[in-house]
């Protein structure tokens, strides 16, 4: 109880609440604009976060994460273009309903469902994460190494269309991570005498380049394409009492489904939302109306995709391994602001964890308030021309890269990784595995090194612990599942 009060006191300090508000509102805007995702939003936020307390930075990132997942539904409903991949299923019924002149109701339903999904997943996060962290506190280097191996197998799940390309992306990330001084032996690797390379590539410019600048290159390809605009007047946001009763029959199970899927590393909002949509349709008495503007077809995916937010935070916070693309970026962001998610955070910084829990919950209510009150503003967000948006983002990217180390070299790194990222994305290489490789690779190597030092070079020590064996087993299962999923065409799509 005292932890809750401590968290409430922190979040509801006016200035901290303002940052949470900015994070959530910014997330909604970023999520709504096609071409920008929660990952890009978090990276654009990073240069500002260095000047905040770690706990404030964390709640702002949490607000951005939840807001962006919800924001994706706005463009999905209004212009049939999901702002984020997790809103793809919302298009199926959201857009037809908007075309019938009921965009207000569609957004209202999406807002209510997203809020409920978020609240349920936050409650699960609050109850599950500390228990898991308590178990993880007993881990030694062998278990941590196995855990990092498991984290790296998430690469298989976030690989996009091609597993081979995804693994190559991950290996590219691992290759970047080995540049610089080896933390165990102190030996200088692959710097070729260049002083800037001795500390390796700076993470912030690499993230900015791979996610944000590469996106600007991609947007350059779209010049000339007309901007899709929603012209109808938005009215009638709230569903009726009878509709609400029906909605909650779908929202609650979808929220739990989303939370459960979010906890499993390598899944994410897109899978959860399609699964929830299918389940809602399967149990509906009016299956035919799905795809033609059924509000249950909006509520199910939206409850599920916001349900994944709290779920995905469980492995991130308690074990230090990200559950999906956005939490991979979040892990990088948190490390840059001086936080290392994992079981030790629960022991060493309980005040930060309490602030996050309360901040995460508050973000859900902010989504409800912002979603319902600013519904008439949403079409205007979608009208921001790319000729203004992306040049401003570019300036922010360069400035953000410079600001951490006050170095023009960092700007060059961002540009270089922007160009590399563009080519990799253009030819089907996903960006998330690169980040996973960059972050988890060194952790895996360090824990392997520690385990070998403790065991006097006995490699067998890696397989002595039952927990480590458990992680190897689920790593194998995770990769096998990804291989099976790629061989079997996805019926949902």
């Amino acid at each position, binding site marked *: 109880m005292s932890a809750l009060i401590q968290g409430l006191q922190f979040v509801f300090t006016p200035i901290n609440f303002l940052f949470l508000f900015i994070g959530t509102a910014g997330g909604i805007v970023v999520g709504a604009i096609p071409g920008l995702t929660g990952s890009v939003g978090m990276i654009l936020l990073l*240069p*500002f976060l*260095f*000047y905040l307390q770690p706990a404030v930075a964390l709640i702002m990132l949490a607000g951005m994460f939840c807001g962006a997942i919800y924001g994706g539904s706005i463009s999905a409903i209004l212009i049939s273009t999901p702002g984020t991949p997790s809103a793809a299923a919302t298009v199926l019924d959201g857009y037809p309903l908007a075309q019938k002149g009921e965009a207000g109701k569609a957004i209202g339903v999406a807002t209510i469902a997203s809020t409920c999904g978020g609240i349920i997943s936050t409650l699960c996060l609050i109850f599950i994460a500390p228990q898991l962290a308590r178990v993880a506190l007993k881990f030694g280097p062998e278990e941590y190494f196995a855990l990092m191996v498991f984290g790296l197998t998430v690469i298989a799940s976030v690989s996009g269309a091609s597993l*081979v*390309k995804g*693994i*190559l992306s991950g*290996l*590219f990330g*691992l*290759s970047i991570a*080995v540049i610089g001084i080896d933390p*165990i*032996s102190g*030996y200088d*690797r*692959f710097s070729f005498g260049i002083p800037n390379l001795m500390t390796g590539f700076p993470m912030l410019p690499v993230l900015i380049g791979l996610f944000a*600048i590469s996106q*600007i*290159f991609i*947007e*350059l*390809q779209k*010049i*000339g394409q007309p901007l899709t605009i929603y012209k109808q007047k938005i009215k009638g946001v709230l569903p009726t009492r009878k509709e609400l009763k029906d909605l909650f029959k779908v929202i609650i199970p979808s929220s739990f489904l989303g939370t459960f899927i979010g906890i499993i590393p390598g899944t994410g909002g897109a899978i959860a939302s399609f699964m929830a949509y299918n389940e809602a349709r399967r149990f509906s008495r009016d299956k035919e109306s799905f795809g033609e503007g059924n509000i249950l077809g909006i509520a199910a995916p939206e409850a599920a995709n916001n349900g994944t937010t709290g779920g995905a935070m469980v492995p991130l916070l308690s074990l230090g391994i990200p559950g999906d693309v956005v939490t991979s970026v979040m892990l990088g962001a948190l490390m840059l602001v001086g936080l290392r998610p994992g079981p030790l955070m629960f022991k060493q910084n309980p005040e930060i964890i309490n602030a996050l829990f309360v901040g995460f919950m508050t973000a859900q209510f902010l989504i409800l308030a912002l979603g319902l009150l600013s519904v008439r503003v949403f079409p205007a967000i979608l009208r921001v*021309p*790319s*000729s*203004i948006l992306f*040049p*401003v983002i*570019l*300036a*922010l990217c*360069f*400035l953000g890269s*410079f*600001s951490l180390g*006050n170095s*023009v070299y960092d*700007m*060059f790194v961002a*540009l270089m990784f*922007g*160009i590399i990222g563009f080519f*990799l994305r*253009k*030819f*089907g*290489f996903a960006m998330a595995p690169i980040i996973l490789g960059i972050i988890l*690779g060194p952790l895996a*190597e360090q824990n*392997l*090194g520690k385990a*070998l*030092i403790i*065991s*006097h*070079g006995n490699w067998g020590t890696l397989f002595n612990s039952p927990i480590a064996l458990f992680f190897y087993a689920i790593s194998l299962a995770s990769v096998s599942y990804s291989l099976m999923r790629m061989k079997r065409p996805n019926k949902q799509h």
Partner: protein
Amino acid sequence: MAKANIVIGSIFFLLALLMFAVALDFPKPQVSGLSPRVFPQFVAVCTMIFSAMLIVKNVRLLAGKDTVVQEKKKLDSQFAARFGIFSAAGVLYVLLIDKIGYLIATPILIAATMLLFNEKRWFRVLMVSVLTTLILYMLFRMVFRVPLPRNPLW
């Protein structure tokens, strides 16, 4: 796409080969602990294996042994020109920012990028480039105290 995959696969393979060769000069494995060469060489070998898989798969595609339709996603010349100008603008910005200062280099970069994005309204270009620069400057220089590059003459 198949040709591009072969090219990218070959680049990955060659880089991994180079990485493996360079790592041969790192200290040899010690009796206990992890040698600095083990992890990079492991990554290099894995990269070689997977890039070889990518190359072989796409060579087979090109040879027409598989039935998958080849996608024709070539960079069109207009985009190639835009890509070149945008990259050059970025490189020039990074090279010149120390010499001409943030307050001059940034509006030029924003204006050039806006024009590249087909913005035709000059007033808008002027306003957005100048205002964005000033807002970012005030925020980072005055609030966050980031020592942004200054023009040496000022």
